[in-house]
């Protein structure tokens, strides 16, 4: 099975150990580190809505995220590597989300779990942020409303592959992982009719 993004990520690997000649040792250290990172991806507890329930279900006996060393959901963002944005992000929650993301230490990854987080889903309205990638950079999108635990697992594996492929510093700003649209962030104002009071 081929996982998409491999082609893209390899070009970014250059950013990883900048200016360093890759010899046997650094290559292996890099491999070891990315191996460790993919095997020990501690998620932050950031449950929002329906998806949070499925995220928790993934952690329990039937699906057992522990198999990949991911049962240690960290309450403190400082110790977490992965933020699973599980559920719709409201305009009120958006700053909090960003704050939690900022509190996380590099390297950090984001999975946008579910369509509400990815694009607002069916809630195309004033209250919901239409895509969490306006707030934080997203690495993997998991579709579904909510995505079943297997879908989340698949997303996590996609992420593992991205990590293992040597993407040491992971942000890929330049080559545009998204579809290229940015939506203006509304702050308290709707675009159309506004009414005072």
């Amino acid at each position: 099975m081929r996982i998409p993004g491999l082609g893209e990520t390899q070009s970014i690997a250059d950013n990883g150990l900048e200016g360093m000649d890759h010899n046997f040792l650094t290559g292996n250290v890099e491999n070891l580190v990315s191996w460790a990172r993919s095997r020990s991806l501690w998620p932050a507890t950031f449950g929002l809505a329906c998806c949070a329930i499925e995220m928790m279900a993934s952690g329990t006996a039937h699906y057992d995220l522990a198999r990949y060393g991911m049962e240690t959901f960290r309450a403190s963002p400082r110790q977490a590597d992965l933020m699973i944005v599980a559920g719709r992000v409201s305009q009120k929650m958006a700053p909090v989300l960003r704050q939690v993301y900022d509190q996380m230490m590099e390297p950090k990854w984001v999975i946008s779990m579910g369509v509400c987080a990815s694009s607002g889903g069916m809630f195309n309205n004033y209250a919901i942020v239409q895509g969490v990638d306006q707030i934080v950079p997203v690495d993997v999108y998991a579709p579904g409303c909510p995505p079943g635990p297997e879908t989340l697992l698949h997303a996590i594996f996609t992420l593992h592959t991205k990590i293992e492929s040597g993407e040491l510093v992971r942000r890929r700003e330049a080559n545009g992982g998204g579809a290229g649209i940015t939506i203006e962030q509304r702050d308290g104002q709707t675009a159309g009719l506004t009414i005072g009071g």
Partner: protein
Amino acid sequence: MADGSYLKGFGVTFKKLFEDRVTGDYRGGKGLEKGKPDEKRPKADRLHGRHVLNRYEDGMEKCIGCELCAGVCPAKCIYVRGADNNPDAPTSPGERFGYVYEINYLRCIHCDLCVEACPTQAITESKLFEFSFTNRSDAIYTKDELLVGDDGKPQQLPWEDWRDGEDTMTSGWMRATSPAGDHRYEGMVHWAGELGYGVRDPEAGQSAEVDDDGGARPAASSVEHG
């Protein structure tokens, strides 16, 4: 403490050591490459997975571009544009065919109202729910990706984890909802053959479990709806 209630719980947890584990060892398809166990839970017949666009047994597309699916979609995640068939080389049996057909899987909530709405059973759902994207454009499926291949099976895109059998179980929800609540229509076939599969069996319905119910199954034409 005297009745040992502090300690009884230890017995419960200890028993678990000898029970079977319930975990299904799904590894996102990774295990298959390395020959490790990689099971997927068997899918329910009615599961709402990613959609497929079906073709008739003669290879014609079923979609007629009527936009019912797009209209009924609560998330407005389907984009359809119809076009007139070329009379010489028609794409679909009718006058029109779906010229553009896109589903944005970052909006789709898998309610499958589109499947219920489709008058020609063109859009049904597969049993695949194991897919994820690394960018937004992958998530917008075009008609080319949604349409079944020449063997009648859904196309298997690189970011999807297909297993045996998941591409053969499409249209479960369509079959389940086709009687539209009228028990007399349960267990009746009323859809055209599909490429690669022919005519699928209907669900058995209540008549399979209750024999003495409401008389015999009506002939399709004799039942008046409403």
